[in-house]
């Protein structure tokens, strides 16, 4: 009984809220929410996303914003946990009154916070959520980050191109990291599909520093290729210890190692590692080259993947808002109407972004044509670069 009356009052109040919000028009500049990890250990990724989004705001407003109406990004820190993501989303939706949200950083946080935005009918673009099932959370949830199943196989094909004699493969992954465990499944499937022998599968934790057990097992199998799914620190250390203990063959690193944060960890031992990438600064499209040039001019280094994906998230929102604005001026819309229309428009449009040409299927899953494989070339102990292979 109590439950019923509670739902009842809620409905009445929600109606009231709609009426109140209904009178309100969209403010200029148009608020767009960014909910990524600015603190906790997830901030390693989140900080690149913050930079990418801030750059997008400045770059897009410098080019006229939404047909003359500027945008304003509202940042709310999610931290690394689920409760933090819900709090950030809740604040963006009710207090900051944003038209849409780019975020959160982790897939697990998305599973927690996205249903909240979906029920509030606020469009969300995941900038780095790669787990299976994210766009299926609800009709208001989409992502610009390609699922791992699509990105990983390219690197294996590339390794075979470099060394066609590869027969035996060792696969290692960080078992406490959601992204790495999904990715390793794809890698292992690809190895089998390519007719290679999966000699050993070794697990580690992202918090590990000593990999003697895993390296010994790999060396014992006498493999020609090692595939690592991990993050910058653990993946880097593992690479270093493999080389120090005498492994000579090729190493493939997963998408979690697609960051220059790995260079200080494995230093000159990083050299030659093949990396699967969802984004490459070498992507030749005009949209990407303009982005890379402006970004490099400002930050003195080429944009990393997480920054490019966050930038793309903001760009997709703005591109969709531009189309809506041409039909009816953005500042004439009411917030609930615009959120629904924006979600519809996002899924309809095609976008020329730094990730290449992208669009969305009806669930909100990104359709991305180009994926990249790069090889690390170290200049000295601390600095190196990703050399684009194709």
């Amino acid at each position, binding site marked *: 009984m109590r439950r019923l009356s509670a739902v009842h009052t809620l409905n009445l109040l929600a109606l009231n809220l709609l009426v109140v919000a209904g009178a309100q028009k969209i403010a200029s500049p148009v608020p767009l929410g960014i909910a990524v990890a600015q603190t906790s250990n997830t901030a390693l990724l989140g900080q690149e996303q913050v930079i990418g989004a801030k750059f997008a705001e400045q770059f897009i407003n410098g080019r006229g914003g939404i047909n003359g109406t500027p945008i304003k990004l509202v*940042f709310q820190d999610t931290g690394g946990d689920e409760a933090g993501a*819900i709090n950030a989303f*809740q604040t963006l939706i*009710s207090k900051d009154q944003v038209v849409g949200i780019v975020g959160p950083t982790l897939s697990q946080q998305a*599973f927690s916070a996205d249903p909240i935005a979906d029920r509030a009918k606020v469009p969300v673009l995941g900038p780095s959520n790669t787990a*299976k099932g994210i766009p299926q959370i609800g009709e208001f949830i989409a992502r610009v980050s390609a699922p791992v199943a699509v990105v990983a196989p390219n690197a294996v094909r590339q390794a075979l191109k470099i060394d066609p004699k590869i027969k035996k493969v060792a696969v290692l992954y960080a078992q*406490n990291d959601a992204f790495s465990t999904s990715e390793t499944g794809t890698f292992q499937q690809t190895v089998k599909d390519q007719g290679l022998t999966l000699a050993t599968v070794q697990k580690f934790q992202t918090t590990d520093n000593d990999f003697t057990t895993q390296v010994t097992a790999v060396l014992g199998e006498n493999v020609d290729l090692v595939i690592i799914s991990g993050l910058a620190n653990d993946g880097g250390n593992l690479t270093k210890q493999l080389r120090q203990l005498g492994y000579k063959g090729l190493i493939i690193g997963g998408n979690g190692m697609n960051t220059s944060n790995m260079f200080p960890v494995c230093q000159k031992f990083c050299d030659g590692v093949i990396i699967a990438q969802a984004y490459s600064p070498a992507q030749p499209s005009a949209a990407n080259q303009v982005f890379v040039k402006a970004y490099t001019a400002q930050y003195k280094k080429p944009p990393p993947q997480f920054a490019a994906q966050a930038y793309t998230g903001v760009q997709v929102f703005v591109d969709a808002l531009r189309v809506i604005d041409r039909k009816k001026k953005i500042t004439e819309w009411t917030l609930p109407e615009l959120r629904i229309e924006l979600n519809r428009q996002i899924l309809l449009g095609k976008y020329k972004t730094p990730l290449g040409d992208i669009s969305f299927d009806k669930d909100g899953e990104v359709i991305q044509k180009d994926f990249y494989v790069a090889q690390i070339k170290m200049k000295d102990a601390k600095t190196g670069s990703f050399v684009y292979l194709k």
Partner: protein
Amino acid sequence: MEFLQQYGFLMATMLQQGLLGLSLYAPLMAGQLSLASPGFYALGGYIAAVILTNPAFAGWRDALGYGIYPLTWLLGAVVCGLLGVVVGVPALRLRGIYLALATIAFVEILRVLALNLSITGGAVGLFGIPQAFGFVDRWQYLWQFLPLLILTLLFFHQLSRSRTGRAFRAIREDELAADAMGVPPTRYKVLAFVIGAVLAGIVGSMSAPFLNTWNAKQGTFDASIAYLAFVLIGGSRSMWGPLLGGALLTALPEVLRGLADWRLVINGLVLVVASLYLPQGIVGSLGRKPKPPIRPSAPPRDEGPVGPPYTPETL
């Protein structure tokens, strides 16, 4: 209403964390420093998440309707209680810091198991958990946590005045003395441990729908330390301490959201200042200070000894 929309989740989280603080307070009543609460919390959540999402339980869900939610609480409580006995009996042979270490190991074992089993969804965890009683907004979960909190507080209140509560206190003050007085320490220590386990299990099973998803990050060493901080900052000698500590330390970073990065600095400062200047915790320093015992006045000299003379035999 807008206030509830925005802060409802936070208010429910405050109660939830307060309850978890209380689950650590339960063994502490008998003087046992156990950090096992996050393990039982994670286990309770997994039980609820599996029953609510796994296709194998579809029949139960259809048959019971909303009744499935109380069932997950019950199962969470029973399983955690049983596991509490199994873990408690050997672990509580250890004391002080060794017990704390053993319980950390227990939390770690459960976490690694959760990461490697397929029923728990591995590292990604379980998601798409249906909402308890068809709740739409986070603040509605107050209907779940508030009654549980009131029941828990009533329970602790009655407990502390009962024979069992006195036995807990006796063990906390001096285990050897309590044993000598005929209070079996092992039985009462395990009982206190199990009470904490059951409470954490119920809170976990209520939290799985509340957070929409459940994964191995819910029960970690970090959480153990967080709950311990709730008890230390709030005060460990009264049930209001862990509750206040949990609610306060959960609310602080969110209330200070406007300060961006500085909010964590202030959060850290509060922890340091509170532990330096309020060693009894917030609630402990609020309560009436017990009067210092009055030194008995020395007996007048000239009266001489009244009782038998003090000799080694009379002592």
